[in-house]
C-alpha cells in the first residue's frame, strides 16, 4: 500500500494527476469529436455524391483501422504535415504541438467517426413528416434545424453517445505513445520502476472502472432528463 503514498516515495499523487489527465484528455477528445461529427454528419446526409464520399471515407477509414495505428500516424505524421503547411506560408522554424493536443486530437478524430454515425442514425430516425409540418408553419431552415431537429436528435442520440464516451475514455489508454502521462503511462512507468506490474495495472483497471462507473451514472441521469415527456 505504501506504493500509493503521496509524495516523493509513492505513486499516489502521480496516479491522481494522471487520472485527472485521462479525464481532461477524454473530455477534450469528445469535444473535438463532436466538432468532427458536426462537419461530417451533414456530408454523409447530403444529396451530393462527392460530399457523401468524403463523409463515408472518414467514418469507414477511421473505424476500420486499429486505434493504435491511427494514433501512431498522427503522432509521427501530424507535426510533419503541419510544418509542411507552415512552410507554404513561409514559416520554417520548428512547430511543436504538445502531447496533450496530439493525444486529444488523435482520439478526437476516432471519437468523431463514432459520433458521426450516431448523429446520422439519430437524424435519419426523426420522422420526415416534421419537415413538412415546419414548412407549413413557415419556420425557416435554421429554426427548423436548431429548434426542431437538434433537441430530438440529442434525445435519440444520447444513449449511443454515452457508448461513444466509454469508447473514447478507454481509447485514451492508447495515447501513451505521444508521451502524455495519463493513467496507463503512469502505471507503466510505476510498474517498470517498482517491478510491481500486477499491482499497478490492477490499480489502473480500478481507476478506469471508477471513471466508467461515475460517467455512466451521470449520463443515465442526463438521459432520464432528456426523455421526460416521452
Amino acid at each position: 500500500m505504501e506504493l500509493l503514498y503521496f509524495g516523493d516515495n509513492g505513486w499516489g499523487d502521480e496516479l491522481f494527476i494522471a487520472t485527472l489527465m485521462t479525464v481532461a484528455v477524454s473530455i477534450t477528445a469528445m469535444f473535438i469529436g463532436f466538432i468532427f461529427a458536426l462537419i461530417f454528419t451533414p456530408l454523409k446526409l447530403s444529396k451530393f455524391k462527392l460530399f457523401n464520399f468524403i463523409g463515408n471515407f472518414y467514418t469507414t477509414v477511421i473505424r476500420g483501422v486499429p486505434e493504435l495505428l491511427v494514433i501512431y500516424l498522427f503522432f509521427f505524421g501530424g507535426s510533419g504535415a503541419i510544418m509542411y503547411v507552415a512552410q507554404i506560408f513561409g514559416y520554417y522554424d520548428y512547430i511543436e504541438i504538445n502531447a496533450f493536443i496530439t493525444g486529444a486530437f488523435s482520439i478526437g478524430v476516432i471519437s468523431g467517426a463514432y459520433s458521426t454515425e450516431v448523429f446520422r442514425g439519430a437524424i435519419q430516425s426523426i420522422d420526415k413528416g416534421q419537415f413538412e409540418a415546419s414548412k407549413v408553419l413557415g419556420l425557416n431552415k435554421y429554426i427548423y434545424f436548431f429548434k426542431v431537429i437538434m433537441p430530438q436528435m440529442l434525445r435519440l442520440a444520447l444513449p449511443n453517445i454515452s457508448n461513444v464516451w466509454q469508447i473514447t475514455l478507454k481509447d485514451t489508454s492508447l495515447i501513451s505513445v505521444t508521451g502524455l502521462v495519463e493513467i496507463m503511462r503512469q502505471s507503466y512507468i510505476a510498474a517498470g520502476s517498482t517491478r510491481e506490474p500486477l499491482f499497478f495495472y490492477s490499480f489502473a483497471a480500478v481507476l478506469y472502472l471508477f471513471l466508467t462507473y461515475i460517467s455512466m451514472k451521470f449520463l443515465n441521469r442526463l438521459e432520464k432528463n432528456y426523455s421526460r415527456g416521452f
Partner: protein
Amino acid sequence: MNIFKKTILTIFASLLLTTNVIADKVKIGTEGAYPPWNSKDSAGNLIGFEVDLANELCKIMGHECTIVEQDWDGMIPALLMRKFDAIMAGMSITAERQKVITFSQGYADEVAQLAVMKGSSLESMDTPSGINLSLGGSDVKKALKTLTSSLAGKTVCVQTATIHQNFLDSGDVGSVKVRTYKTQDEVNLDLTAGRCDAALAAAVAFTDYAEKSGEAVVLVGPTFSGGAFGNGVGVGIRQGGDDAIGTRDAKLLKDFNKAIDKARKQGIISKLAIKHFGFDASM
C-alpha cells in the same frame, strides 16, 4: 498578402498551442527507461548518466538545453521529425543508424552481455571474457560457435530497435528465437518471470536491475563489442544540409564534438561514468 499570411499563421499557431524553438535552444531526447544510462525517479524527474552528461555538455557549449522524454522505438523518427535536436539515450553508433542520422564522436562505451537467471544451463558456457566482432579471428569464431550451440532453440529477449536485436538478427549466433520488447524494464520483468531463457543488453542494465530488485540475474558469456554492436555511444544528430535547419544541425554536431573533447579532458565523463556505472566507461 503578407498581413494575410501572418494573420493566418497566428490563428493557426494559437489554435494549436504551439511554441517555437529559438535557434539557440537545444532539445535533447532521451528515453528515461534505461537505467543507469537514463531513467526516471518516482517524482517523475529524468535522471542518470546521460542526463547529467547532457547538462554538462550544454554548459560547455553555452547552449540552453531542455531534455525531453521519448519512447525508444520512436527515438530516431522523432529526431528526424525535429521533435528534438539531439539524442542522448545510450544509442550506439552503428552503420545502420548512420544511414539516416549522424553521430558525434563516442562519449561512452556500452559493454553488451547476455544475462540469465541463476541456475540456467547457460551459466556453464565456456567462452573468452570478451570478444570484438570487428577483429574476428579464431577466438571469436570459436566463441560464436559455442554461443550458437548453447542458444539453439532458446528464447532471447531484447529491447526493440537496439544493437542487441541487430546482433541476434544477424545470424552470427544461429537462429535463436528473438523476442523484442518496448523497454528494457519489460525485458527484465520477463527474464525474471521465466519467459526468456536469456536476455541481451548493456551489462550495466542487468547489474543495475539485479542490485535494485534483488533478483538472481547473472551475466554469462563474453562481453560483446564491434560489428553489430557499433563503436560506442554517441550523440545522435540529424544529417546536416544546405538549408537553415541543415546548417544549424551541422553546427550542433561540431559543438557537441568540441564539448565532448573538453569534457573528456577535464575528466567530467569519467567522473560521471564512475558515479553511475561504478566503473570508467568513458571513451
